[in-house]
């Protein structure tokens, strides 16, 4: 009985010391996580150089057009969005606002930027067929035009691509990114099987014939109208 009580007392002492040691460890300041936080903040990557302006890409095309000899224009414009740089901020009185300025390196200062546009439209005559390159400079818009001409009626689908090419001014290193790929669908129609040039010729010829056939009655028509007015 005596041995059991001694064993119980020793066990209690051991457990109590373990518990105290644990509480001391948890109460003590831990320098390790702080060091980790510091190392994490210093290891943050520097922001990549970017074009310091918000731009707006506008694509204008005819969703429906006449097949045959007639052509139309597809226009792609990359212009500066004047309102794009404004960041809306809500201010509440009494609140403390802490901000940090992150300077994004200006890409125009370090690189030559060239916009490249391409129109892939299967089955339709496209001019120019190859990619168009336009130098992009600060605040200046760039516009690309394509002339399209569907020979046959039907639905034509294609993609308008816009890439940006960067060339490092100091090293000459080149890189390229895709900015936009927009799918376009154009329907080419005819007039009940009549191509547009036949429809135009028939329209002109029909007007002349209709005028000639109806001409002898012009006098009667004028007399009829005047009679109605007098009444």
């Amino acid at each position: 009985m005596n041995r059991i009580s001694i064993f119980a007392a020793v066990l209690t002492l051991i457990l109590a010391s373990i518990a105290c040691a644990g509480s001391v460890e948890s109460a003590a300041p831990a320098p390790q996580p702080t060091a980790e936080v510091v190392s994490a903040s210093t290891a943050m990557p520097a922001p990549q150089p970017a074009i310091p302006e918000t731009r707006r890409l506008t694509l204008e095309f005819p969703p429906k057009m006449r097949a045959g000899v007639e052509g139309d224009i597809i226009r792609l414009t990359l212009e500066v969005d004047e309102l794009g740089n404004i960041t809306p901020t809500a201010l509440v009185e009494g609140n403390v606002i802490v901000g940090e300025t992150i300077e994004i390196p200006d890409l125009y200062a370090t690189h030559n930027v060239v916009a490249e546009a391409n129109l892939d439209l299967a089955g339709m005559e496209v001019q120019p067929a190859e990619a168009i390159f336009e130098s992009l400079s600060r605040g200046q818009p760039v516009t690309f035009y394509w002339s399209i001409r569907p020979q046959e009626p039907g639905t034509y689908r294609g993609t308008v691509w816009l890439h940006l090419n960067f060339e490092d001014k100091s090293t000459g290193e080149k890189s390229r990114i895709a900015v936009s790929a927009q799918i376009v669908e154009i329907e080419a129609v005819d007039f009940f099987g009549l191509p547009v040039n036949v429809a135009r010729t028939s329209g002109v010829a029909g007007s002349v014939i209709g005028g000639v056939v109806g001409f002898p009655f012009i006098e009667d028509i004028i007399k009829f109208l005047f009679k109605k007015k007098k009444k």
Partner: protein
Amino acid sequence: MKKIRLFLAAVILALSIALLVWAYSPNPRETRVQPIAPSEMQLP
């Protein structure tokens, strides 16, 4: 006879004007606007 001729002239004229309107009317245009943020125009 006069009435038939007048009717024929009206039909031919109406048909011809319809053809001319279809053939010379401008194509409808569709415009799509897409804003591009500076983060989309940075080095890869």
